[in-house]
């Protein structure tokens, strides 16, 4: 098992390095050069030159690369072009917001999706199943930001239960904080939950058909024990996979949902930095998001060891 985890961690680090390099190369290959893009067409050559020197873009490429990597590892993430704050500070204030919303969405999504999938599988073609299936279908048919808008209209504007704009930090109170992340959390969590529900349902249906379930029946085991003790863990294995893959939806969704709710999270930061050609911010934000993504997938890999004994304990010993 440890070998497996070590392998996955190594893989994750490799992927991060690849992403970093791609970002590095990508942002330096902007047509016309990043500096010209940042300053605009009318920039004077001297302004261009001085900014280039400032950003270290006049050095040979490999020197830039090493400097950049080295800087990151020692905590220097560069400076924003437009505001003079360090990128680190900007990201530091934006990240907790995005992470809160994403985490809330995932937890809520799983809490809804897994029981919904189980119900769908055990009460096939009954009303409860149809409700779950339709819900799942609808969940993946709407862009996250639209869900956010609908929620904002109904629960924010009409009913007034939740704030429609802004994020309240937990330091100002847990309840206000929660209230500020509920609606955006649901908006990113719903498409996520939809995918997980479908997989849970179909995986459980398949599992219940397996030969070892017949054995359980033949032993006289009650149907509830069959479901929870015998079937569920086996059915969860593909669900863990999907839960990991779908995290991409949560991260992607938060970008647009943050705009809807006026939250200054990583999504807002990323988009603004692109519109402003604020490349130092852009590259670090993308890197961070990729990092969160890779890390979450690593967690999923580790989760496998808990769920599938075949991974935890090696193979045959006769």
């Amino acid at each position, binding site marked *: 098992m440890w070998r497996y985890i070590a392998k996955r961690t190594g893989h994750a680090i490799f*992927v991060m390095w690849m992403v970093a390099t791609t970002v590095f190369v990508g942002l330096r290959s902007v047509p016309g050069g990043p500096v010209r893009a940042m300053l605009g067409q009318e920039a004077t050559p001297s302004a261009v030159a001085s900014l280039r020197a400032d950003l270290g873009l006049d050095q040979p490429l490999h020197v830039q690369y090493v400097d950049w990597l080295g800087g990151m590892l020692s905590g220097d993430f560069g400076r924003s072009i437009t505001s003079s704050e360090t990128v680190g500070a900007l990201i530091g204030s934006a990240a907790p917001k995005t992470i809160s919303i994403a985490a809330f969405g995932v937890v809520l999504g799983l809490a809804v999706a897994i029981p919904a999938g189980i119900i769908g599988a055990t009460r096939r073609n009954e009303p409860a199943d149809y409700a779950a299936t339709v819900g799942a279908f609808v969940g993946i048919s709407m862009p996250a*930001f639209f869900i956010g808008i609908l929620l904002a209209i109904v629960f924010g504007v009409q009913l007034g239960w939740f704030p429609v704009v802004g994020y309240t930090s937990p330091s100002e109170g847990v309840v206000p904080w929660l209230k500020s992340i509920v609606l955006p959390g649901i908006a990113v969590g719903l498409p996520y939950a939809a995918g997980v529900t479908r997989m849970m349902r179909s995986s459980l249906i398949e599992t219940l058909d397996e030969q070892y379930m017949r054995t359980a029946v033949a032993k006289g085991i009650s149907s509830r024990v069959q479901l929870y003790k015998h079937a569920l863990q086996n059915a969860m294995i593909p669900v863990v996979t999907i839960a990991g893959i779908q995290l991409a939806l949560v991260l*992607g969704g938060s970008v647009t949902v943050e705009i809807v709710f006026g939250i200054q999270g990583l999504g807002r930061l990323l988009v603004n930095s692109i519109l402003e050609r604020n490349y130092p911010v852009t590259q670090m934000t993308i890197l961070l998001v990729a990092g969160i993504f890779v890390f979450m997938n690593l967690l999923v890999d580790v989760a496998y060891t808990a769920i599938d004994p075949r991974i935890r304990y090696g193979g045959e010993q006769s």
Partner: protein
Amino acid sequence: MSTGNEADDAPDFARNEGEFGSGEVPSEYETDESVEEYKTTAQRVAGVLKRDKLALAGAIVVVAFVLTAVFAPYIAPHGPEEQFGFMQEPMSQSTGDFDGDGSVETVTHYLGTDDFGYDVLTRIVYGSQISLLVAFATVAFAFTVGTTLGVLAGFYGGWIDTLVMRGVDFVWAFPTIILGVGVIAVMGGLGWVNVVVAIGIAFVDDFARIIRGEVLSIREEEYITAARAVGMGDGRIMFREMLPNAVSPLIVQATLMVPFAILGEASLSFLGLGVKPTTPTWGLLISGGRGFISQAWWISVMPGLAIMAVVLAFNTLGDGLRDAFDLSEGEVN
């Protein structure tokens, strides 16, 4: 034990001779073996559409969507820049001389008007054009790039295969919107092509995977060996022999991909990073109405419902097609 061997070649163990030997039955018990009919692709699709009501509904909406986009100027009740009263509610009416013919008429705004006084329904109808165009272009892009990569990977195998598929896999798994945003950043700006590439790149994997699977499975087949023996070049083999077999999963995948492309384009537009045509896309319409959700919720909600309807339609149609072509869920997303 011989029973006097005539034409009857009864096995040795048979003690008596039966009136009916092995495999023979009295005529009244004869049964016809029914053979499963071969159905052409078109027949199977028609069959599914008849059975699966949801898929049929989906197909209808899809057709309506395409027609609306193509004939937008004729279908839209008004001009996209025609102004009426500001932020009027759905099903409200305006009275006035709008077509400049001197007489006063009353028109109904089925979906209301927005903050500029434009008729929402009209804007949605016009918006369908770009949404459709971009979505199809994106799928076409992903299709082309994906099948090319998939054919190369499957055909050559080895490290090319590994490299290509690993790269494609990672891109696919990465959040689409963020990827799209990143690509737009790199490509240096906004515009049509950038958006298509930005979203399309995320879907390359699905097509590549399908084609690669087909290629791998038929690579060793005899007719490929035969083609080689006759001296067919690699390229010809790949495109003439292998590609046609993968057509049905590719069609299904494309159908299922369009809704994702629509959603992706809508998201990018919403962020202000999408295409900026003369009339707004649906994503831009939603974005435009965002500031008014407390006073005029319909400005954002109506285009959103349109997106939802179209996406649902493509999804149900795609699912139905998948059934028609008898493909498992594992094969096509």
